[in-house]
């Protein structure tokens, strides 16, 4: 009888568990994008993504709000978006139109920046190597095939490929 109830509990318990991917927050996204697009991309990332909305996730630390006799923060990167509320932003990101809008703008401005694209293409001409920076463990291999089918080998093709990979969802999952 005891076994019966344990099995009954087990069979119904799993229906209460919901799984959803953990989306990287703004700190994760920034670090990854800087690694891929270079240090010169930090300004674009800050303007369009890092100081974006709560949906991107990544709370600030209110103890880092140090001003040192100035109106400006000692370290602008520690700024709390939306005031103190920024310290309660979720640890992980959430899918939302604000997040995707920020990402669209960030990726677009990154690939449209001549300097950044030049540095990226100097690093490697191979689409696979750029893809591997986003997906080091080769997640979403079909995406790479689709991109290859639809991209050319020139700079425009590289921009289109990078933009698409940048917008893809799986590299954002931690």
């Amino acid at each position, binding site marked *: 009888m005891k076994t*019966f109830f344990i099995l009954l509990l087990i069979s119904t318990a799993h229906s209460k568990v919901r799984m959803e991917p953990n989306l990287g927050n703004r700190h994760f996204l920034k670090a990854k994008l800087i690694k891929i697009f270079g240090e010169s991309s930090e300004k674009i990332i800050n303007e369009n993504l890092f100081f974006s909305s709560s949906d991107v996730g990544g709370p600030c630390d209110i103890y880092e709000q140090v001003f040192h006799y100035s109106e400006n923060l000692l370290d602008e990167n520690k700024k709390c978006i939306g*005031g103190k509320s920024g310290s309660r932003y*979720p640890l992980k990101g959430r*899918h*939302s*139109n604000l997040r995707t*809008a920020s990402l*669209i703008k960030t990726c677009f401005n990154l690939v*449209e920046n001549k300097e950044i694209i030049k540095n990226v293409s100097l690093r490697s001409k191979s689409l696979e190597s750029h893809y591997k920076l986003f997906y080091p463990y080769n997640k979403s291999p079909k995406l790479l095939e689709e991109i290859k089918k639809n991209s050319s080998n020139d700079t425009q093709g590289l921009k289109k490929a990078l933009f698409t990979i940048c917008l893809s969802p799986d590299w954002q999952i931690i």
Partner: protein
Amino acid sequence: MLNRRDLMTFGGASIFLSLLGSSLNTLKKSEGKNNLNFINKNDQQNYIQINLYGGPSRWVFDSLLTPYDNDFFPTPMVGTQFSDDLGNMSYKTKKISGINFPSLWSDKISGQRGPIGFENLIDNTIFIRGVDTKASGHPQASTKTVRPNSAGDSLHGIISDNSSSPLSSIIMGSNPVTRSFQSQKRGAVQVDIGQRKMFEGIFRNFHVKTDNPNKLINEALKILNVNKGKNSQYVKSLTESSELLFDDFERFNSEYLHLLKKYEQLVKMTLHDLNIPGVNDFKLPGLKESDIRKNQNVMDKFGRYKLDYQTMFFGNDLRDNLKNVHLGFIPKQFALMEFMITNGLSNSFLISTPKEMGDLLYNVENRNNFLLSSFDNGSKNKTRDEVININMDTHDTGSIMGLVSTSMFFKGLSSCLSEFISVLKRKELFEKSLIHITSEFERIPEKDLHGSAHNEKSHTSTFLSGKIKSPSVHGNIFIGDKEMGTIGTSAPIKEIKRELNQDDIAETITGLLNIPSPVRRSEKIIKEVNGKWVAQLPKAKNLEGSSVF
């Protein structure tokens, strides 16, 4: 070792249990699907909560103490008009649509085309009073107004998750209420209303300054659509976001600035061009310098003249100190909200105070006042602050400034609300909207009139909507006695055998908006009946009993 009988029993049990499990799953899904009515694009309900964090007294506004000629016991600090220039006051009302409203409601507010009455705020309103917060302190009590179940999602979170609006909940302000947002899927747009370029701060996410990215986005979407798999919700979000992108920021910014100017004008005209009869239409003298003596009972004698924790009001006329007052961020919040709602950008809004405790009046002139410490030894210690704000948490706001500041604040707020409702009506959105005015709790006057304490057994929630066709007041309060008169302390309702509580408010809101409720075993105070929102409780009563606890 299992024998054949045991094996058959075990196998049978396993099959039975797995069938039971999957049936329960199906039942749960179908039960979930049947109970969840998602707000769709064509028929989304708007929810606007105006949360006055700090808990100002609302006796002059929507905390109606004797709506149906109920028994009433007067209290020196609970008044709607001054009876003389010494700060004595009385609770005067005016009967409108069969309900005794505080006298402020018979006054005029500013409209777009000149002074108007309060009709927009009366005809479609249900007032709920006498709600027991069952909480202690500002953070706990205020959180219940947005997140009644601390383990569950907040009201705005539930709305966001069930909404297909391009933007999820717009949360304006910074205090425990705004920080209580919790949802499963969608975040909130947290707006720093103190930010100088607030509008730009929100819409920069959608503003593309240079070349149009749509061609590149469409090509990327084509590839991602093929690849989407389980991420189709993500690709849908990408598509929606790309549709929201714009390059002509100035056009939207101009629209917002035009709205901001409108609300600022309304507040300015209401506060400074239209006096409030019985409140600021005559001289309000303060203390004289000769009153400053070493005085052991300074609060007993002069409590009513207190302005804040350290300042006493001196001078010929309090009105001289109020010539440049304003309502802070209220116009900004209304302007942004009107922009968002009329452009269909969001259907869930929380307007609250910008920096923790809210202020009723900003920029009160303070130069000629003296510090409370002057009465310690009879020395004349002048105030150092040139201007002060009158806090919503009126522990140290004497009865004179209390009546003046709350009257001016709610009159200014009413002018913004009235205009906002007019806009909603013009856009045929008022029937699809629920406006909710709330704060954490009401107040208990101090005996010496130097301020008021928290009354956690009294909360007021006011609901306005086009679906409410006539005004009514519900919720019982105690009459009180000579120790403390009628102030709004909750009393039980016979029909539900208890006082109302915050869960009932949440259950009501979620029921009206057709979204899942975060609470259980609660009353729906208002329900939809034949397309109209009708109160389910009897009219408000005042019962015998003490107002203090």
